[in-house]
Structures are given as structure tokens and as C-alpha cells.
């Protein structure tokens, strides 16, 4: 049987397709739906947003006059932008390391405890099943001035610890971080567990024979061998926190003042609160550039580290 198909082109003359061409065409057809989704729902809106961010489009009408970089200059020179940027950066510095350290330690703790480990994994993963909005409402009740946390402190005579957790500049971001970590820990724990299960058991056995203690095992064996999982988790958690919107929106609306407002929340605020769509788009572009930059820096550093460790 011939390994080529014969088709007729538009002039009616015969044209032969090789097996390779047929295979490529089939692959293209399989990929086409996903590609169309990406083009229509991601790439096109992204490019249009970039286009409109350079205009004075009001978000409703059809008119859009070119203004160049005016919107970008306005949003970054606006008086509260500095605080918003600091908040976003603060959350990255606070949330990413704390989350990953806790997730890794918990993964190590539940990794080899037998069947009861499944119960622990379920409990730890449960918050991740909830929507971020529900999580925010739960923690809003917990952190409320007359909420569970303060009531517990008062009940145990620790009145001085009862605070307005979400209403003070010094406590709002750490409080928010705790709620995000509670939500996300299960997800990252699973990735670390997947990495741990890939580490050959024999390595630990021979390490034990050689008298390596648990701390040395962790730093000399476990962490180097799960470096790819660490890379994935750090990148994902960074992107997650940079683009975080729903939890701060429900929990604090960016307050008090601008003390918990993130760049993502600022985009929403421009688009739907102050109704300044062109500023919202400029801010969204800035957010995108910021996220890409941070991610590329992290990727470069972590990949290099992986190569060294492995």
C-alpha cells in the first residue's frame, strides 16, 4: 500500500501528501480547538487591551483617541500607587517563602505515615476545594473585631491580643497572608508530595546506614532531588499572589486606606469603581509585565540552582 495519499488540488491536478505531512496535519487539527480558544480568549483580548491602554477609551463607547503612554504615566505617578506596589511586593516576599516552607515540611511529615497519611492529606487539601470568595468570608468572620479569634483571646484572658486584624496597617497584610496560605497549602503540598514520591527510597536507606541525620537528609538529599517541584511551586505561588484579586476584594477591599490593595485590585478599582477604563488597562499591562519579569528572574535563578543541585 502506498504511504502517500493522493488528493486533488483546486486545479484538479493530483497532489501527493507524505505520511509526515499527513501526521502534521492531523496533529494540527487536534491542536486547533485549543489554539482557537487561546487566540480568541487570551491573545486577542490581550492585544486589544494593550491597544486600548494607549488610548482614552472609556469602556463603553466606540471612540478611542490615541494618547500614547499618558495612561501609564498617570497610574504610576498617582499618589497611592507606591503603596499598592509595595503591598504586592510585600505579599510576594512574605507569602511565597512561608507557603513553600510550610508546604514542604508538611509534605515531608505526611509523606511516609502510612494510611493515616491520606486523612492528613484530605484535611490539608480541603480548603483548596473552597472558592477564594468563601475563604475570604470565613476569614472575615474569624478576623472580625468581635469574631472567633478575638473572642478566644478574650476568653483566655489575652485581651491585649484581641486586635482589629483587618483594620490596622500593621496587621492587615500578615492576616491576609495567613488566610491565603491556609487556602493554598494543600495544592502546593500535593506537588511536593509528587516530587517526594519520585525520590528513590534506597537513597534514604543508604543515607541512614551512613549515619546521616534527618536535617542533613532534608538539605542534602530531599531538597536537591525535589528541586524541580520547588521551582514549579515558587513560580506558581508567585504568579498566584501577583494576580490575587478575589480574596483581598472580599476581605478588605484594599483597606484600610490602601494598605492591602494589590495591583490586581487596583485594576478592578479603575475599571469598575472609578470607571476609568483606560487607566485600568494600563495598570493591567503593568501587572502583566511585572508578573512576567519576576517569573523570568525566578525561573533563571531556580533552573540554574536545579542544575547545580542535580
Amino acid at each position, binding site marked *: 500500500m502506498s504511504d502517500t495519499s493522493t488528493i486533488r488540488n483546486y486545479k484538479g491536478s493530483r497532489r501527493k501528501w507524505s505520511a509526515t505531512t499527513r501526521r502534521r496535519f492531523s496533529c494540527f487539527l487536534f491542536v486547533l480547538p485549543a489554539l482557537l480558544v487561546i487566540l480568541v480568549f487570551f491573545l486577542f483580548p490581550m492585544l486589544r487591551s494593550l491597544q486600548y491602554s494607549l488610548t482614552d477609551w472609556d*469602556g*463603553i*463607547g466606540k471612540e478611542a483617541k490615541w494618547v500614547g503612554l499618558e495612561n501609564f504615566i498617570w497610574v504610576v505617578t498617582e*499618589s*497611592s500607587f507606591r503603596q499598592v506596589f509595595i503591598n504586592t511586593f510585600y505579599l510576594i516576599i512574605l507569602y511565597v517563602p512561608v507557603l513553600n516552607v510550610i508546604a514542604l515540611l508538611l509534605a515531608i511529615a505526611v509523606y511516609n505515615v502510612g494510611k493515616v497519611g491520606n486523612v492528613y492529606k484530605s484535611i490539608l487539601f480541603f480548603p483548596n476545594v473552597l472558592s477564594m470568595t468563601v475563604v475570604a468570608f470565613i476569614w472575615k468572620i474569624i*478576623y*472580625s*473585631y*468581635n469574631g472567633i479569634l478575638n473572642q478566644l483571646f478574650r476568653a483566655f484572658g489575652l485581651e491585649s491580643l484581641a486586635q*482589629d*486584624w*483587618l*483594620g*490596622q*496597617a500593621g496587621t492587615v497584610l500578615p492576616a491576609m497572608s495567613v488566610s491565603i496560605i491556609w487556602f493554598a497549602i494543600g495544592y502546593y503540598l500535593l506537588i511536593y508530595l509528587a516530587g517526594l514520591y519520585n525520590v528513590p527510597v534506597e537513597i534514604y536507606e543508604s543515607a541512614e546506614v551512613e549515619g546521616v541525620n534527618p536535617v542533613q537528609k532534608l538539605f542534602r538529599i530531599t531538597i536537591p532531588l525535589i528541586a524541580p517541584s520547588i521551582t514549579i511551586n515558587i513560580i506558581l505561588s508567585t504568579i498566584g499572589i501577583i494576580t490575587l484579586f478575589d480574596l483581598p476584594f472580599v476581605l*478588605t*477591599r484594599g*483597606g*484600610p*486606606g*490602601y*494598605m492591602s490593595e494589590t495591583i490586581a485590585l487596583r485594576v478592578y*478599582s479603575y*475599571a*469598575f*469603581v*472609578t*470607571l*476609568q477604563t483606560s487607566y485600568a488597562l494600563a495598570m493591567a499591562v503593568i501587572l502583566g509585565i511585572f508578573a512576567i519579569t519576576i517569573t523570568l528572574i525566578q525561573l533563571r535563578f531556580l533552573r540554574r540552582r536545579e542544575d547545580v543541585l542535580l
Partner: protein
Amino acid sequence: MKKALLVLSILLLAGGLAFSAGQQGGQETVLLTCAIHIPDIPEKFGEFLEIFASENPYIKIDYTTIEDVETFLKPKAATGLMPDFISINGGDFGADLVDRGILIDVSNTAAAKNTVDAVKPQFTSPQGKLFGIAGGVSSSLVYYQKAVFKDLGISPPKNWDEFLKVNQTIKGAGKTAIIITPVDGTIANTAWSHGFANNIVPSNTDYFQKFDKGTMNLDTEAHADVFAKVKMLADRGYTQGGLLSTAYMDGNQLYVQGKSVQHFAGTWLAGMLLPTEFETDVYPAPWNASGKTKVPIVATETGWGVAEGPHKKEGIMLLDWLNGPGFHYYQNARGNIPHVKDPMGEVKLDAKIKTYIDDVYTYKLTAGLWFEFIPAATMQLIPKLYQEVLLGQKTPREAAAAFDKAAKDAVK
């Protein structure tokens, strides 16, 4: 052949039944989409809509509650997916929508003819189109626990100095004096609007026009005092714990639970705040200086509008019903102040609110609520500025200057 004919007959019969089900009394069924902002009685409002639908069987209602009018409607307007019947606030957002033809001009509806003229300007666009009908007349005032006042031997204050003394007495008795909610627009509905009314309106009676033109000067001591007053209340310990995390419904719940002696809130909450376990009374907010005549607030509540589209006729029918034969359902549930000339049913207005508003109507000079005249782009700024002042991040004068700049920039 026979089987084929039988199948065809069944299909035709089924099709005919389906077609007639979509028809009501010869009219095609209309699905009227309604997006309503009514956070205090969302389920009840749904019941009102069902009553309307039962009186007009060919209309089916698709009802959605919305938290924030402008936030919800803006993307809908941008994508051409406006619900048929919507909540809308007085101010420039609605004005913009009607001038673009996204909302219809309801000037010639029965609802408009049955609405008092005083609440129409806020819903009128620069092109003279009426884009909505107010949901009621609104004001903000102080709700208070009558028994506590009696026990402490105090009476409702008439000016700011007396107000401070009353709060001090309440604080001295170990109670929370007053609830202030700086987290959201409630602070603007209350402290800011009253501060603006008393400090600025008397010498700027054309403030609506000045805001429109961007000539309203707010970088003044008088405007700074509007922020300073709330800071004073907080600094003296008169406000509730967790001040900077108390939002609209949190504050209402705190008062209903009896955790504060006074609550500064809107008249639209009368239905929730008056029928408490303890007796509640009201008094006009004493934001005027001693010796100066109070400038009370007379404003509009969130109202309703109709979108341009294939169902605008049914939208107008609902608008006329809500502001006509169906008005008493809505009004009785909320206990708010009627904006209609003829309520066409029994109005249940608490005697205290009636006394309050009758008194307010006697004042020569009144002012509107913030959202009716400040530029839409500055709306979120008021609560934020209060929060920054309360955090000590800005002085009241800096807050005044910041708002002044933003209001002028918004018009450029």
C-alpha cells in the same frame, strides 16, 4: 408509511403544544431581566416581582440582585448586555448612559408623572433626559436607643458641641456611643454628606454646577473639618471597636444587636433599624456648628431605569407598577420615605421617620447625598480618605486637598 404518518402527526402536535405554551393570551412570552440593588430586602423584592408577573402572565422575570450598581452595569453597557430593568443611582453615570441611548428617557411614563419633582433633577442628564425614577426620598440621620438616653438623662443634641457632650456621657457610662462605618460608601452617605452640607453648601448653593464644571474649591479648612470631625469621634473613643473594618451591614448588625447606643445611617434602613428589641428613635444629624442653622440632607434613593431594547415596553410596565399600584409592597417592606405623589395603597411610614422628614421639609436650604453630585471617578476616594485620616496617614487638610484635586481632574 402509516408509521411515518403517525410519527409526523405526533411531532406536529408536540410542536403546536410547545408553540402555544410560549404564547399567553395571544402574546409571546417575554423574559424580563431585572438587576436590582436591594441589599436589605433581596428576597422580598423578588416576591414583589412575582406579584407583578402574576398580574401580567406573559411576562416572566429573571431576577438578579447586585451589590454595586455602577460596577455591575458598566461591563453590561460596554458589551451591549444591559438587563431590561435595572437599579440606577442619580448622578453622572446614569446620565451618561441615557445620553448614549443605552437607557431610555422615562419622562413620559406614568411613573415619572407620579414622582415628586424634587427627586427628578438628580436623575436628569445634561441633555434633559430622565434616566430613572428614584426609589424613594432619602436622608441620613442618627438612630438611638431611647431608653439609654433616658437613663443617662441626655436628649438628642442639636449641634456639634452638644453631640460631643452626649457622646462623652455615653462613653462615661461604659457604652459605645456611636457607630461610624468608614469602610465603604456609608461614611460618605453620612458624615461626609452632612459635613459638606453644613460646612460648604451655605456658601456654595450652586455646588451641583460647580462640580459639573470642575470649579468647586474643596482645598479649604471647611472641607478639612468634614474629615476632622470623624477623626475627633474616633480619637475620643466614641466609636465602635474595629472601626476601620466595620462595613455597611456590619454596622447595622452591631446596632440591631444593641452594641452601640447610636448609629449614623440612612433612612432607607428604617425598616431594619427601627423595629429593634429596644426602642429606637431618630434625630437629625447635628453636624452644624453651635449657633448655625442645620442644613439637612434631602436626597434620592437608588432608583430604577429601563434599558433600550426589545423589552423596553415591559420594562416601562414594571417601572409604572413599582411607582404606582405596586409601590406600597416595596415601601411597606422598607419603611422608606415615599417619592410618589399618589402611593395607590397604604403607606407604612414609621411616625418617627415621618416626623423627621416633615421637619426636614421645613428647612429652606437642604443638600443632596454625595453620589448625586461628585464625579463618578472620585466616589471611592471619600471612604479611602477617611481611612487614611483615621490611620494617621493624612491630615484632614491633606485629605481635603486630595479630594479637591481629584474632583477637578475628573472633569478635565
